[in-house]
């Protein structure tokens, strides 16, 4: 194990800001933020459709606001294998709906409420994620 590119301060700051969004949505709208739930309900359910839509639009505006305020470029690096992306998307979409949550819904909103179900889900997807990267690196 080698520790590289460690940026705990920006990660922690980003986490606090994400936590703030979770509180706002909870205290004002009475709902928990889980992006997979919000996105799939936007697709399949008429309940709160406008709220879900606006949340998702906000999510896309977020990086633009960041760029505007900090005047910094946002660098991301992402696979360009279309097949890999397509398979990953399918797994993430189906998996999060079967288990009822993703990194935000289980990992933050669920664990924040000390839900055992969410703790089990988070530990599971972390372990499988780590194993997947390990296997990918070996192949």
């Amino acid at each position, binding site marked *: 194990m080698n520790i590289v590119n460690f940026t705990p301060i920006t990660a922690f700051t980003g986490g606090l800001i994400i936590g703030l969004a979770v509180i706002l949505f909870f205290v004002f709208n009475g709902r928990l933020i889980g992006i997979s739930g919000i996105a799939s309900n936007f697709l399949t359910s008429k309940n709160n459709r406008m709220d879900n839509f606006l949340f998702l639009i906000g999510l896309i505006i977020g990086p633009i606001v960041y760029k505007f305020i900090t005047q910094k470029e946002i660098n991301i690096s992402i696979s360009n294998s279309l097949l890999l992306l397509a398979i990953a998307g399918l797994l*993430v979409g189906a998996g999060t*709906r079967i288990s009822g949550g993703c990194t935000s819904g289980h990992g933050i909103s669920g664990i924040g409420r000390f839900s055992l179900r969410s703790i089990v889900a988070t530990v599971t997807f972390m372990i499988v994620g780590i194993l997947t990267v390990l296997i990918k690196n070996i192949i």
Partner: protein
Amino acid sequence: MSRIVSLISGIIFGVGLTISQMINPAKVLSFLNIFGNWDPSLAFVMIGALIISSPFFYLFKNNKKPVFADNFSYSNNKKLNKKLIIGSSLFGAGWGLAGLCPGPAIASLALLNTSSVIFIITMFVGFYLSNIYKTKKNS
């Protein structure tokens, strides 16, 4: 009013994903690469988000009404079952393959990235398929 809160929560969440670099799949993949060149930063996103949100979940636990809605609405599912493990495992595999989960994938649309578009399309197909499956099973 709830709609304005939805939009603002989405924006704040998107800013948090950007500052923490959770939006960068390469960062996510090196977070999961604990047996190689490991970048543990993103653990601090979760710590930050939980430190700020869990006290509020606790404070509002008992029947107080949210500000702009009639009641708190979220799942109180406590079941630890096969579906939870299978779903989380599928999600973990997809997450480890591409380094994308639903929130960062949608936020990265702001960067006009074709790779995230492919991922999002198949993610929505995944939502849709598991929804059909659920509806069939329940009918």
